[in-house]
């Protein structure tokens, strides 16, 4: 059981090691000649105006991420159900249950749709 997750750990360790090794190699070979004009953020050749990462972005991205959290958690509930569907003794019952669940899910989607959360104008 635990042995099937050991490769994940080894893989993450080895890939990180490779990435850092390549970066070190690049640091040894590459030239270093930084100056102000090279180091400013690229804005079509003009001096950048203001700070980009001070938290100014469209609220709509936030709405989409909340919708994602809701829907992704709901898909997670469907996974154990999908594996149980082969069990003939309970499959009829859980199928009816899932119709109700999917209906609630669809209702949520219709609500978000009607409220305009899915529109990008």
């Amino acid at each position, binding site marked *: 059981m635990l042995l099937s*997750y050991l490769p*994940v750990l080894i*893989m993450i360790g080895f890939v990180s090691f490779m990435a850092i090794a*390549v970066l070190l190699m690049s640091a040894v070979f590459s030239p270093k000649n930084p100056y102000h004009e090279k*180091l400013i*953020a690229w804005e079509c050749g003009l001096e950048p105006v203001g700070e980009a990462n001070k938290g100014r972005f469209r609220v709509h991205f936030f709405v989409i991420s909340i919708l994602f959290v809701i829907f992704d958690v709901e898909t997670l509930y469907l*996974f154990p159900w999908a594996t149980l569907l082969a069990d003939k003794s309970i499959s009829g019952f859980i199928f009816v249950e899932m*119709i109700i669940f*999917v209906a609630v899910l669809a209702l949520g989607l219709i609500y978000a749709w009607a409220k305009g959360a899915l*529109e990008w104008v």
Partner: protein
Amino acid sequence: MIDLNLVIEVLIIIFKVVFVTMVLFSLPMPLTWIERKVAGHMQARLGPWRVGPHGLLQPLADTIKLLLKEDIVPENADKFLFKLAPIISMVPAFAVFVAIPVGDSFKIPFIEKTFTLYISDMNVGILYVLAIGGLSIYGIILGGWASNSKYSLLGGLRSAAQMISYEVALSFAAIGVVMMTNSLSLVDMVRAQDGGFWHWNILYLPVGPVWFAVFFIAALAEINRVPFDLPEDEGTLAAGYHTEYSGMRFSFFMLTEYVAMVTASALAVVMFFGGWNAPIDFRTIEILTPITSVSWIYSCFGLFWFTVKVSFFIYLFMWIRFTLPRYRYDQLMTVGWKILIPICLGAILVTGFMRI
């Protein structure tokens, strides 16, 4: 007292992981060459031609060039996150491959040990792939934010919104496959599609093609390929989230993209096209029994079929890239939320009805 069998098993795991990582690290080199050749021939050009015969050494030259480039860190950037982001985006793309089965297990001749052509048969395979695959978003959004450049920030935000929107559709497609095969393990999924192409999930009529269409569109969006490559829309965003990156860190993002393309192809094959299974079950043909009953030969055939199918999908991704134009951003969100998700909800009910 150390268990010798356990030590051998761990050593085999380490060997497999190192081998797969090396293959994935070097795979983008031939893939970039093939991509440019495909692009060239589709547009009646030659593609790379100068470096080596038929431009075969071009990727090597590119690698050396990227290695020798200056690693620029913008002065207003969040330096720590800026340096970390490419690695964060690269590591999950590789880690996903732990769960992907490329062939069946077989007995090594003479020593009677089974050797598996997959690194790990975890019982939550598909869930693991979705979870770890989703982590790549962090690298992209951190890279976009930490650059402190407007183009990068917009690219990162777009990318994050796009990837999480299509992640939902991708999870639904995975649920569809789990319903058809009744297992979360990718190895079991392939075994459930054994015995000829009419057993493959794509031909699980009428819902198989629908699930595949949903999966394929969502996968295209997840790996940021045309027609959904808005995060790196040159026309409006310079290069998107990696505008400020250069040299090796930039190439890590590219590496991630190619590895993600291979992963998406492999997942499409495993989930819908029978994985390592041959289109016709050769074990049922009696003349071939002396060959196919030897398990390692049969596994080699499995590996061959898997490679052929994955290559086809990689070619398909390139084909699409040089055929279709790019979507507009609002169209992209409309496809994700208003078309794919309602289709998924309907298809879940139909599939469930067929399975009870």
